[in-house]
């Protein structure tokens, strides 16, 4: 590429349209991509890219380590501790899904086995109290062995079969812990639906980790060790072999890579890390029940990995921060009742603002606002008062709720049931319409769609935050996989034929 001659070869007139032969276009466009990172966050993004990886880790530790100093204990528990938990779980799943390309849907079962394993050896359930330094490694080894057993099937089960076997395994695990609960030594092994309570806290050299701060720092250390370990594993011979296996198992096998052993290794590593997370989680909660290990948790962890970017190390950490913080904001809150409304309208406006060219964004924004007021005026003029007399959920005293009540049609309780159903289905249909038209038609279709989104949000989604979060995870998986499979910070996969 470094052409030293002063007279460049004359370019053919249709150079733009032609494929450049001899230069891999991805490599050739590298500088352009760098230059494109301009704008407000441009320098930060370029600086982040340029800094070496250990510096990034230390930056992360420096920021994460100061969080307990300015956050209350309760906030630290929901925002700090759970983010670290999801990040560590995400890293473990990333080994299996991102590095080795195996769809392991039983991942949460290892998490659960770790938790139950810790509960069995450090509670009054059987009266066994192992020291933490013995129980944590034992739990990791045990979940690793379970992973190995399940991984043995991966030799013959390719792709989808492995996914369904592991999903079935998760289901069997849930049934086993929740309802089967066999009697061993006179006590139900897993305690049935009430689980096992009164677990010992983590205890090292006589110090018990009982406050949220101590637990947070301990879990942060675990996360950093896992990050560093996986970073080196990813750059090692094994990591390269995993990537080869992920891209093309057959070609990898031809290159004398021990495909089956590497698959098992990935599953075992993921399982052991999940088991460790489970044990720590159980110790922090001081109780385990099978409701902690359902499919919903699996989807959250998958969302964490896929949002951040499969196969990258920083991806799951970033994904965990975004997912957990927005998950917590969606919950009904007493101190900031309006915050989810700010988040929602903020996300909509950000979506509009990212449209190109800028006048299209202006048209959509103005159109949506005008459309909303028009619809509201028509409905309140023609229909009965019951169509606009509903109240917004979690209004608080903030102004956003008051404005939206004059913009969004909110029928009262009597009409609510069927209106919610039709509005929701209408929104899904509108989104499908937007997806299938192009150009100015799409811009035009966006106006009623965005308004409908607001209507559905105020009427159906905002009053049911828990289900809303799960719907959003489902949508997130679909949207990311179809629009940006590399996630937030992963690098795009280039197929070189």
């Amino acid at each position: 590429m470094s052409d030293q001659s002063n007279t460049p070869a004359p370019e053919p007139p249709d150079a733009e349209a032609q494929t450049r032969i001899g230069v891999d276009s991805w490599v050739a466009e590298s500088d352009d991509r760098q230059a494109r990172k301009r704008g407000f966050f441009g320098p930060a993004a370029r600086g982040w890219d340029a800094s070496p990886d250990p510096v990034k880790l230390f930056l992360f530790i420096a920021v994460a380590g100061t969080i307990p100093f300015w956050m209350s204990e309760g906030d630290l528990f929901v925002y700090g501790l759970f983010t670290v938990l999801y990040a560590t779980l995400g890293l473990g799943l990333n080994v299996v899904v991102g590095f080795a390309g195996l769809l392991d849907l039983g991942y949460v079962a290892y998490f659960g086995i770790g938790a139950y394993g810790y509960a069995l050896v450090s509670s009054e359930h059987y009266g066994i109290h192992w020291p933490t330094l013995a129980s944590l490694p034992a739990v990791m080894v045990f979940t690793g062995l379970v992973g190995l057993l399940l991984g043995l099937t991966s030799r013959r089960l390719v792709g989808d079969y492995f996914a369904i076997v592991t999903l079935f395994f998760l289901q069997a695990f849930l049934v086993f812990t929740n309802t089967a609960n066999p009697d061993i030594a006179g006590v139900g092994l897993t305690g049935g639906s009430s689980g096992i309570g009164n677990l010992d806290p983590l205890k090292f050299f006589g110090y018990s980790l009982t406050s949220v701060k101590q637990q947070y720092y301990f879990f942060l250390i675990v996360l950093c060790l896992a990050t560093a370990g996986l970073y080196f594993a990813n750059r090692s011979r094994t990591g390269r072999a995993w990537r080869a296996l992920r891209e093309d198992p057959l070609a990898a096998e031809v290159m004398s890579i021990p495909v089956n052993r590497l698959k098992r290794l990935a599953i075992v590593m993921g399982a052991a890390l999940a088991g460790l997370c489970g044990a720590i989680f159980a110790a922090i909660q001081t109780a385990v029940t099978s409701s902690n290990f359902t499919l919903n948790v699996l989807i959250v962890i998958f969302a964490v990995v896929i949002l951040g970017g499969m196969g990258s190390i920083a991806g799951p950490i970033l994904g965990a921060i975004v997912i957990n913080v927005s998950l917590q904001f969606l919950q009904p809150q007493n101190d900031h009742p309006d915050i989810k409304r700010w988040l929602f309208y903020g996300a909509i406006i950000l979506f509009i603002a990212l449209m190109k060219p800028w006048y299209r964004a202006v048209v959509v924004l103005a159109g949506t606002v005008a459309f909303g007021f028009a619809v509201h005026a028509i409905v309140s003029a023609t229909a009965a008062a019951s169509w606009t007399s509903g109240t917004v959920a979690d209004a608080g005293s903030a102004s956003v709720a008051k404005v939206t009540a004059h913009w969004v049609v909110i029928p009262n309780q009597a009409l609510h049931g069927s209106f919610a159903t039709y509005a929701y289905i209408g929104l899904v249909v509108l989104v499908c319409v937007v997806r299938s038209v192009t150009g100015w038609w799409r811009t035009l279709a966006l106006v009623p769609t965005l308004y409908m989104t607001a209507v559905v949000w105020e009427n159906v989604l905002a009053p049911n935050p828990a289900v809303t979060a799960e719907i959003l995870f489902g949508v997130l998986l679909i949207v990311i996989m179809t629009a940006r499979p590399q996630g937030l910070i992963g690098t795009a996969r280039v197929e070189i034929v």
Partner: protein
Amino acid sequence: MHPLLFSIIDNIRSLGWGGAFQLLRNGLVLGSLYALIALGYTMIYGILKLLNFAHGDVYMVGAFLGYGILTRLNGPLNLAIGIVPAIALMFAVAMAGSGVLGVAIERFAYRPLRNAPRIAPLITAIGVSFFLENSVQLLTNGFQYTYDPFELGKTGNEELGPLYHTVFSVAGNPVTAVQLFVVGTAVFLMVALVLLVSRTKFGKSMRATAYDREAASMMGIDTDRVIALTFFIASMLAGAAGVMFGLYLGVTYYFMGFLAGLKAFTAAVIGGIGSIPGAMLGGLIIGLVESFAIGYVGGQWSDIVIFGLFILFMLFRPRGLLGSRAIQKV
């Protein structure tokens, strides 16, 4: 010997031949439902090599569509029209609605990923499944709704509605109208499907697309259309199964698609994935295994028994009972 084995032997003794017949009957009815769902899995897998996780949820949506029509007709009690046209209408709407849903899922979730690595559409499928399940949970508030088949279409002083009339009995064990109806409808739909796939031009293009998509499109087959139609038919069968589940067992709830989907997929695998007769056979086997496991071992173990069976099958005969041996081409 383990106490569980004792209890199994006890159960076999105490239930006797009559109990065994009842289990066989329940297993056949359940099995024909699983077979209908398994057909959808196997068709979609055959044509796209994609495990459509959302298929179980399409079945659930079908059950809810049927329930919606039932309530529009003032049902389950005081039906506005006769029971036969009412059930026909429920089937028509549920099958059409789930068919359209299946086509929409294919168009908006799977088609953009035709040439992506295999893990991408799988993750999307999980997303679709989760989206459908929770959307229905949101719109139904997570309640169970009942078709009330015992009283459906009841007239006068009858104790049970026409669906639960005994048609004939075997040694004092009744076989009700709804059980015959479920098995009969399932058999009818399967025969229709087999004829469609083996005798019509569309069936031929479907088989061609499943065999080699690229070559089929070179022969002038609009593969996108064939795939969309396959999704339509598969989802239609699932919708019919949903209504039949409602008529037979009475309840619909947002979570019913997950386990039914898992078991139906197991059925498709045991029969040999991609094989239509295999899916029917596998469905019957799973239905019978589940029914006998519930009767003899206990309800809490039936899922674990099916799971164990599935694992054994995967380890020793991954191509299933009627599947063809897969040859990997390079």
